[in-house]
């Protein structure tokens, strides 16, 4: 079965990872989920969307994003990076941290799926416009 797209999810909370993985896989996405904040660039291959938690031990989401962006810039296809947080202060300004946007309502499976579907529509539309 052709997958709807490949997504990299980075979150230190295993429960969140399991939730996100099962939700997105059931919706037809290919999901790479990791709780590691370093050495994740190798998972970027063919990923069109990256979802990153903010509060994580060691590096916070913005720092993880910086390292991934550097790796993504040399890649063929550049993914969209979205912040996934329930911190109201952080979710106010994803652009300042370098993210393309924020997925709010963390923990709500329906909301996550709607956001991911919309992000992939955005990706497909931009590709269509480039043609």
């Amino acid at each position, binding site marked *: 079965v052709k997958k709807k797209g490949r997504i990299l999810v980075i979150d*230190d*909370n295993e*429960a*969140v990872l399991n939730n996100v993985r099962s939700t997105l896989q059931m919706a037809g996405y290919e999901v790479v989920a990791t709780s590691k904040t370093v050495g994740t660039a190798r998972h970027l291959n063919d990923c069109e969307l990256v979802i990153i938690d*903010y*509060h994580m031990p060691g590096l*916070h989401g913005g720092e993880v994003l910086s390292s991934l962006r550097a790796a993504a810039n040399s890649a063929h296809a550049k993914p969209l990076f*979205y912040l996934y947080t*329930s*911190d109201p202060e952080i979710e106010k300004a994803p652009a300042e941290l370098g993210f393309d*946007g*924020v*997925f*709010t309502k*963390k*923990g709500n499976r329906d909301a996550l799926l*709607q*956001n991911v579907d*919309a*992000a992939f*529509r*955005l990706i*497909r*539309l*931009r590709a*269509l*416009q480039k043609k």
Partner: protein
Amino acid sequence: MKSLAPEPSDAGRFVSIGSRLAASIGLVLAIAAIAIATQLMSSTRERLVEGKRLAAEMVVNLFATSVTPALDFGDDDQTREEIGRLATNQDIVYAGVWGTSRSEPIAELSRSAVARGSMPTATGSVVGDDAIEITHVLDRQGGRLGSLRVRFSLSRENQQFLAARRKILGFAVLLTLLAAGAVFVVVRRIVVAPLTQLSNAARRLQQGKLETVGVRANDEVGELATAFNAMATAIVDRERSLADLNRRLQQLLDHMREAIVVFGNEGILAGVRSRQAETTFGRSSFEGLQVQSLLYPKRSGDVEAAAFEEWIRAAFSVAPSGWDDVAALAPTEVMLDAGSERERVLALDFRPVEEGGRIARIMMLANDRTDVRRLERTVKERDEEHERQMGAMRRLVAGGGQLLVSVLARAKDRLVASKERLLRESGPLERFLVEELFQHAHSVKGEARAFDLALLETAAAKVEDLLAILRGRLREGKGVTVEEVRGELLDRIDATLSAVSGASTMLVEASPIGEAILAQVTVQRGDVAELLALLGERADEVGRVVTRIASRPFGELLLALVDSVPRWAERDGKRARLEVEGREVLVPPALAHVLPDVMTHLVRNALAHGIERATERDDAGKPEVGLIHVCCRTTEEGPVLTVDDDGGGLDEQAILAQTMGLGLPNGLAADAVFAPGLSTAGPSDLAGRGVGLASVAADLASVGYTVTLGPSVEGGVHVTMAPGPSNLPKPFSKAAASPRSPS
């Protein structure tokens, strides 16, 4: 719709075409008049000067004739006399006579300071601006006598010329003005007035009023007026036709159940919409708004709104042939007022409106799917609830009930400890406190996950999330006080405690043996049987304990029945459910051995003979779903069991008639039902073979139990099974009932 009216001109102040034409023609006439006047003035002056010159020459010739003798004789006095006569001519401003011997004049006449000049050497005349000078050389045979110069003033001629010039110029100006005025009047009448009429009519046409102009001139303006009238009529006809089409379209839209709006480039909404759109979007005016604001109000930053913005751009930039690719990427559903009482789910569909080979507008059809989604969500929640219960059941079957109970107890302890800790602390939030609370929440969440307790896991994760955020802030050096976060943390901990309580309740509800699950341990059935065989006959405390160990909870014995009752009833065209009370009551091994069969017979009998079909129950004012209530109570003699149904009760006449037909002793119908072979209904899947209740009575009698039957409070049948000797007559004994066969 965008107005087709021209934008206001920025060409400056309005100037009438008549004025422009009059000014232009006046300018041309003025130039011509000036040219003519100049020519006329020039010739006038020439004529005046030429006349003066001829007269002057005549005067000079006469003077030369009169002065010649005096010069010939060298009579200077006569010469001076002759020149003095010239003084009578007021035009002569200077006259001088020269001899041949001196350079000075012999005689001269000068009215003003006029330069005399040198001796003339030739005859001639010179015309200046102010005067005409004539020189004359006087000769005789053989030599020259002298010469003379006379200068005539042109002041009179110049004055005449100036007067003539004034007249000419005045006439030219007058002529020019008259001509320009005439042109203005004519142009105004034949061009400007009709054009003004056309302009006014066009303005009124713009306001939607049809007005033709009555210009009848047989020229270009007339043709223009005729063309305008034809155009105005065509425009009005087209507008009426468009209005009619719009009205019909609006009627069509109003009859559709979807909320329909139409938008153009950049999502700008047109005025056309269906009546349902006003209800769905809660507004009566749409024109000029952006469709984005209808679907994603106050959500400018989120990904769904961004994707829709991008989609609108793409939709209006592709050719109609590329629509399908874009349409596939349109949002299919949107939730409005999420989380509020007005929450609605709209299914979206987009249709392109083509014009001139491009997508000019897009029609959006929004269908309210709120009820469907709510139903789906309810079903999903029930499915999830069912799944949770199944999970709990699986754990119970696996003997994990006690483990779960201890997990829930530990979770409660951890959460209560967290609350107390939080209430004790104040001032700056210390990192070690966050870590301690985090550890508690993390443990609760992990154990909840291990037992598939999704609600508890989610609640604990919310506590953990908040603590993770706080941990992050502390790590970044941002100060936080306990007071600032205590309220939110306590709320989340309380919610987790509620989830613990809910999990306990769910465990007991899901348990077929009720609260007994909380005290149950798992042992091998064979071991218990062996223990019972060895020690069960003892009359001492050991025997009683062993018997208790071998006893089984009442609910466990009915496990299969609970699920079977609705299915059996359905097969018989009825609806019913089984309600169990006293699931945790322990049933002694002997009774537990016969009870599943006994209860199956009684319940099937209640379904077959007691519970009516739904229509009959409805006519009788009873709930559509029949109820069979089984109960087990502990007494000193042992458990007492009852079965009640809310069906139609015993058909006593039919039972007694059957009793007589079978040659059985006369008695109460309630006792007669236990007679072997008695059945008041034809055989069915449920009952009717006439051995069921006899077998029940016999089975119970074999374990020291008696069964009695009577009317229930609800009007159905009430069956009681209690310890005691059988009260049934001999023919109803176990021997009479055999051979036993399934009913």
